[in-house]
């Protein structure tokens, strides 16, 4: 006789583990199923973990979680072929409790987080693939795994199975995502001695820095690159929408190679030893791509529900928060013994009233705008670099004349009207 649980969570990433942890802590009988050898074995992100949503789940987590460095400096680069225009913020207040965010290595962090769920009472099973939801009379009643005697049942199934979410696709919650709805990101973990990292990034031992790189880092395509500091390694990676990659006929590893050999980037990673190469899709369709997130006996969370804010590179925090909101609904449903779609839609409502969907709604046109009008990355980044170079080069030209020349350069390259149009469009997309 197959077992029945209160809730089955599919996928032990931030969303699934957050949900399993919260449900288990509230006394529910939870089964957490992970396909990897251990939680985190298959999970990839650039590496920034935000403090706020994690702290809601586990107060003071930074005292015991395997974190790399608290981020005290965030830099943003507009990069051209042989130059970079940069701005950023560094503040020591981010280096003390309660911190702002941290760099992490997911293989370690996810294992620790899942261990917390197990300590709270969840049962964790790894190396097991859920092949489909078991549906009876229009209601999801359990899951089928690839193991012998592999059926398990539950009142409610939470799908945290990541970006492609084959399970919610099987249920008809979404179609195959289009190439412009997902980004392909490749990254490497490059080992480098601590002293070198501290020197190159101007840091102390327990201070981290993140650099987001726009422009030539993606050869002008819609996307970004990043360079983050861990304790004794760097995470360097680059991603663009799959559609841009297809259109530009770029291969992801070539793009990463290009970035690593870029004269602005190379000195940071020089002498490092590549320890790991990772690649993953990121759901970046935003507001318009969020699928149906609740059905009869089933809830969808995290990447599976496309909850990523590409503009602010937030994802794991949204995943965790969606897991928490899902757990709250499941706990209430369990109390009432009602797992119908209308009951589980409370999760949907909570999600839409939270910062998650509000933020996605704010930027609902951003990615589409930047994808449709490539000039922002292709033309303006080089123009801004040229302008900065001109303005800061001392050559006896009066500064006012320089300003005029810069503006003239810009408008002559694209035309005054088009520059104004571009500015308005960009403002509208992110306002």
């Amino acid at each position: 006789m197959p077992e029945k649980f209160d809730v089955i969570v599919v996928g032990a990433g931030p969303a699934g583990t957050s949900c399993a942890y919260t449900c288990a802590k509230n006394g529910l009988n939870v089964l957490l199923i992970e396909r990897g050898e251990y939680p985190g074995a298959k999970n990839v992100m650039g590496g920034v973990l935000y403090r706020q949503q994690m702290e809601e789940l586990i107060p003071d987590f930074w005292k015991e979680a395997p974190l790399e460095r608290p981020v005290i400096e965030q830099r943003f680069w507009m990069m051209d072929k042989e130059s970079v225009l940069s701005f950023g913020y560094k503040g020591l207040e981010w280096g003390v409790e309660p911190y702002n965010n941290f760099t992490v290595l997911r293989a370690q962090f996810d294992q620790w987080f899942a261990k917390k769920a197990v300590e709270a009472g969840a049962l964790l099973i790894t190396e097991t693939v859920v092949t489909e939801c078991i549906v009876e009379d229009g209601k999801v009643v359990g899951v089928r795994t690839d193991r012998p005697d592999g059926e398990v049942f539950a009142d409610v199934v939470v799908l945290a199975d990541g970006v492609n979410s084959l399970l919610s696709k099987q249920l008809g919650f979404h179609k195959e995502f289009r190439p412009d709805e997902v980004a392909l990101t490749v990254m490497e973990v490059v080992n480098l001695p601590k002293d070198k990292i501290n020197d190159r990034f101007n840091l102390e031992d327990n201070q981290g820095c993140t650099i987001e790189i726009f422009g030539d880092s993606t050869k002008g395509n819609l996307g970004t690159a990043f360079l983050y500091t861990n304790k004794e390694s760097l995470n360097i990676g680059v991603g663009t929408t799959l559609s841009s990659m297809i259109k530009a006929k770029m291969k992801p590893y070539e793009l990463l190679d290009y970035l690593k050999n870029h004269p602005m980037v190379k000195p940071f990673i020089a002498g490092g030893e590549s320890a790991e190469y990772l690649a993953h899709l990121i759901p970046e369709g935003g507001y318009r791509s969020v699928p149906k997130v609740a059905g009869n006996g089933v809830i969808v969370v995290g990447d599976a529900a496309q909850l990523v804010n590409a503009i602010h590179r937030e994802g794991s925090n949204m995943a965790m928060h969606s897991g928490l909101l899902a757990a709250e609904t499941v706990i209430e449903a369990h109390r009432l013994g009602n797992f119908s779609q209308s009951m589980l839609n409370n999760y949907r409502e909570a999600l839409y009233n939270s910062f998650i969907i509000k933020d996605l709604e704010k930027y609902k046109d951003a990615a589409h705008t930047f994808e449709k009008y490539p000039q922002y990355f292709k033309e303006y980044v080089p123009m801004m670099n040229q302008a900065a170079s001109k303005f800061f080069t001392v050559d006896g030209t009066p500064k006012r004349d320089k300003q005029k020349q810069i503006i003239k350069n810009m408008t002559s390259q694209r035309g005054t009207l088009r520059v104004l149009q571009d500015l308005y469009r960009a403002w509208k997309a992110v306002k």
Partner: protein
Amino acid sequence: MHIVVCVKQVPDTKIIKINPKTNTLDRRSAPAILNPYDAHAVQEAVKIKEKTGGTISVLSMGPPQATAVIKKSVEIGADQGYLISDRAFAGADTLATSYALSKALERIAKELPIDMIICGKHAIDGDTGQVGPGIARRLDIPPVTNVIEVTEVNEREKTVLIKRKLTNGYELVQSEMPCLLTVEKEINDIEYSPMPNMISAARYEPIIWAVDDLENVDRSQLGLKGSPTVVGKMFTPPRPEGGKKLDGSADEQVSQLMDILMEKKDLFTLQSTK
């Protein structure tokens, strides 16, 4: 039928690195796994139990986190597991390890008499293959090493028929039970564990014994104190130099090859055919 399988948690040596400065294993660099030979030992116990019925226990010695390999064994199909874990056991070589394990086996046998003990051929971190036979000697039961097949278990006669791997074939031996087997990897294929096993394993809490839970223990034979082995030095073997690639037409390559062989002819025993 009560089978006890002795298992060990080892660093995954496929991945592990040696710290070039200290010449010690960098254990952080590799995840801890169930010694692969031991996984086959558990699987063989499961296969035997399918025919005879009975109970499969696993036994391990190690730090508290070694309970992971006991849970892994329950996934494969073991019924229960014991971990002996105590500072007194730390630093044990194969002599002290087999002593400690034999004491734990005596305690297990007191609760349920043991018919067979199965170990992996050796652990992949030490490659000694000494602990299995060491246990057999201390318990005064026959050791049967390099087992590639358990052909027949006769519970009534208390005998077992076994194929042992030899360098140029195999030998078929019959042993009385209880006995101790050490198994090769080819003895079986590890099966993909069924879901109910996975759930039992996730729930299972291994039994942990400290040294005081064992009886008649001579503490001087435990841990570092009971270990006469001294590791002199550990090092990464130098990489062999790359070979030489010959270019040119087939004839040219053959003549180049002949030149090289002639140059090194002292290394070979040449037999001329007239």
